[in-house]
């Protein structure tokens, strides 16, 4: 674990991507398979199943420290990270000279067995390890115990490091890292073995991610070179059908097949060796709002009632594998034709929406202005905007610019006033960066309407932090209330009725657009103004697209 702790320090001490990749590659080259496997597990952002809850760890820390509970909690609020609080708050350890376990031994022989201990025994063991380890190791130990490392590396960077360390193509590593795996020595050996071209049957392909359109459409060239589709407000997913089995993967590489039995049932008619990319949406005579789909998320098993209320479909827009052949290198237009051909073969082309494959329709357009007009209808259709896909683009891994653009509709925007602030976590600990904004209701009473964490520059954050500290009215634990004076323009992507919010509304993806220093609190939007943004009904965009 000392090597892994040193790797962590090296990763944490640099913002250079190349330096991070080099440090990880060094680690992997010299790592025994068990350590390598666990390192991949943690560096790729996976975590152990929760062994000891945060509240219990805090109690252990209070007991292990010489300080009253409120002071320990104040330290935690300042630091923003429990593992780091543990590492800083406890007295520096006297090295006892005993050998430390390897990363694999630490996880398998120390951490995982905690699951079988009662609370008292867990406390004894954890505190004992805290006292044995030095600050850095104590931090790592607690991090692994509580969750993901979050050290600024992505699975993509881990793949780059593995590819460099074992002289393999990055795409091979990426595909081996997709899907379900257990961090065992066998996994690490398989991950790093030479490339023999074989594919495990459940394994999806790395998702191709679109970039936000950052240039005028006119500069994209002839409209005829591009395919346009709606950008669905759903869940990106890959449907894998191989050897009579179906696997549905979310973009977070989670196997979600059991949560969508209706998709699985329809997929049974797909031929073996087929991989489809598309969007899961709630579907009853058309697309349901995302809020409906949200009810299906977070449930491992879905009951018959919910299944009937919010049936889900996969709107297919790409075909990555057909007849067992990887066609990601073919042109977008060719893959689209393959997908349409597949849909026709399956149901004779009669009723696309009734067959196993529901296609995400293409939008016909001959000039960019006409497409812009289509985009303007997006909100009324309940979609997020448009996708533009270059006809000759290959299906790349990850976010590569140029092939796929997302052209979202402009967000909603309101002016609201700051009423509460709370210190952030992690990178933003010790600054007030989590803000609550309000608008007045019909009685002039301020109702919280949105929480936002992003959108200000670092300089603005520091300035606002100072203002908050000087104008604190009340403190509720970590939250401070401030006079309703600072006005901000808040943008958001969607709005829905909500019984769980005091305002009766919930906003999607709220963020700060700008600090309206010119505006005073009397000029903000009212709750009634915001309510008017609720759209009454949503027509069916698939039908609408087919009409047009």
């Amino acid at each position: 674990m000392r090597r892994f702790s040193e790797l962590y320090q090296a990763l944490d001490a640099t913002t250079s991507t190349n330096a991070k990749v080099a440090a990880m590659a060094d680690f992997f080259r010299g790592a025994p398979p068990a350590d390598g496997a666990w390192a991949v597990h943690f560096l790729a952002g996976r975590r152990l199943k929760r062994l000891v809850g945060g509240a219990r760890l805090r109690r252990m820390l209070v007991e292990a420290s010489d300080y009253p509970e409120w002071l320990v909690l104040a330290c935690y609020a300042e630091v923003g990270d429990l593992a780091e609080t543990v590492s800083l708050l406890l007295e520096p350890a006297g090295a006892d000279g005993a050998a430390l376990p390897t990363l694999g031994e630490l996880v398998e022989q120390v951490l995982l067995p905690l699951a079988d201990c009662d609370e008292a025994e867990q406390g004894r063991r954890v505190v004992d390890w805290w006292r044995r380890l030095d600050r850095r190791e104590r931090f790592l130990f607690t991090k692994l115990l509580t969750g993901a490392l979050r050290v600024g590396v992505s699975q993509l960077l881990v793949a780059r490091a593995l590819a460099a360390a074992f002289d393999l193509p990055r795409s091979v590593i990426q595909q081996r890292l997709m899907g379900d795996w257990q961090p065992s020595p066998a996994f690490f050996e398989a991950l790093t073995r030479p490339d023999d071209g074989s594919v495990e049957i459940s394994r999806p392909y790395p998702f191709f991610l679109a970039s936000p359109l950052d240039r005028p459409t006119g500069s994209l060239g002839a409209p005829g070179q591009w395919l346009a589709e709606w950008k669905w407000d759903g869940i990106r997913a890959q449907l894998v059908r191989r050897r009579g089995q179906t696997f549905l993967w979310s973009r977070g590489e989670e196997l979600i097949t059991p949560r969508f039995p209706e998709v699985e049932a329809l997929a049974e008619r797909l031929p073996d060796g087929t991989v489809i990319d598309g969007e899961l949406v709630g579907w009853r005579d058309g697309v349901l709002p995302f809020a409906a789909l949200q009810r299906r998320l977070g449930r491992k098993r879905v009951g018959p009632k919910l299944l009937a209320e919010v049936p889900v479909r996969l709107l297919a827009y790409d075909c990555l594998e057909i007849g067992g052949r990887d066609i990601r290198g073919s042109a977008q237009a060719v893959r689209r034709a393959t997908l349409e051909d597949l849909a026709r073969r399956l149901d004779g082309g009669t009723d696309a929406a009734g067959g196993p494959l529901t296609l995400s329709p293409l939008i016909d357009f001959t000039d960019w202005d006409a497409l812009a007009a289509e985009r303007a209808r997006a909100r009324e259709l309940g979609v997020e905007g448009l996708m533009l896909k270059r006809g000759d683009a290959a299906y790349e891994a990850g976010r590569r610019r140029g092939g796929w653009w997302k052209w979202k509709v402009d967000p909603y925007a309101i002016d609201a006033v700051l009423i509460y602030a709370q210190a952030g976590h992690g990178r933003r600990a010790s600054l007030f960066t989590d803000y609550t904004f309000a608008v007045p209701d019909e009685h002039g009473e301020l109702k919280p309407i949105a929480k936002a964490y992003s959108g200000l520059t670092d300089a603005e954050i520091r300035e606002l932090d100072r203002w908050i500290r000087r104008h604190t009215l009340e403190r509720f634990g970590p939250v401070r209330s401030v006079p309703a004076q600072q006005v901000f323009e808040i943008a958001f992507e969607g709005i829905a009725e909500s019984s769980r919010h005091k305002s009766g509304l919930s906003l999607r993806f709220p963020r700060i657009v700008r600090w309206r220093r010119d505006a005073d609190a009397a000029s903000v939007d009212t709750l009634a103004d915001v309510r008017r943004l609720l759209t009454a009904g949503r027509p069916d965009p698939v039908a609408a697209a087919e009409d047009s």
Partner: protein
Amino acid sequence: MDKTGLVPASGVAPDGIALIELTDSGLYCRAGDFHVDPWRPVANAVITHAHADHARAGSARYLAAAPGCSLLRHRLPGAAVEPVDYGEPRRFGPVTVSLHPAGHVLGSAQVRIEHGGEVWVVSGDFKRQADPTCAPFEVVPADVFITEATFALPVYRWPDTATVAQEVADWWADNARRGVASVLFCYALGKAQRLLAELAPHLDGRPVFTHGAVESINAVYREAGVTLPDTRRVGDGEQDYREALVLAPPGAGGSSWMRRFGEAATGFASGWMLLRGNRRRRGYDRGFVVSDHADWPGLIDTVEATGAARVLTTHGQSDLLARYLAERGVAAAAVATEFEGEGDATLQ
């Protein structure tokens, strides 16, 4: 935290008025008619040190510790500054005032205020770690101690300064091997000079390059008799910075001034760098933990050593320190001042 009725009834001077009260202009001694570090112009200002949140322009007369007067005049050109040696008593009417080393920066002082047998001490900003560029903190027994609380949380414990200097030297050597400049950001007044002095054993005759804001303070330190290693102002003559160590104030980061270094490694030296979140948020490559404020053990030990029966806490974690002391049987309360500790200097 009511700003007006701040000082409660206990710790009251013989004539029935609190020796120090909080007014709109700051900490005020009515009996002697002077303010300590006022944030508005007043008649008589007793200054603890030359940092911007403690030494503000516009007052008629300033009293400051002799070693810090040149700094104060540098920051407040034209101000009427009267020097007083550490420990030398001055009368303000019936009140006796003396200044005592605070160990924060050159000439920094605690203010001891005695009236009718009662002693109040205002700590100003202070630290307990050794600093080759200023006189060490002196414990001054007090009935009432007004202490700063910038880092008053037990997570704040400073590493040994020599260890940090070694870390900076290693970082510099690493960058030099890669042929990139090492730009270390730090406050121009105090921190930069302390770092220079601590880095002296690692320089092997090489000069350290400095931003103009740092270099002008270096000159004041040298004139005051503080020994600093050889420094060169960035931009004086043709220079190759590829293996250089450069000290600059945080405000220079991201400015056009930085362009001359091409690709450069950046570091920040501050007590806040103890926290990983701060290191990451600032976007510097490295954080080095060096503070000119007392850490938690320093604060607690100092409060105890003064023997004060009452403690008032200002800036930073003043509420928390007051509560902790109160639970340990010390009469303690927080005072809302406009001092900002180490945080504000990042905006200078």
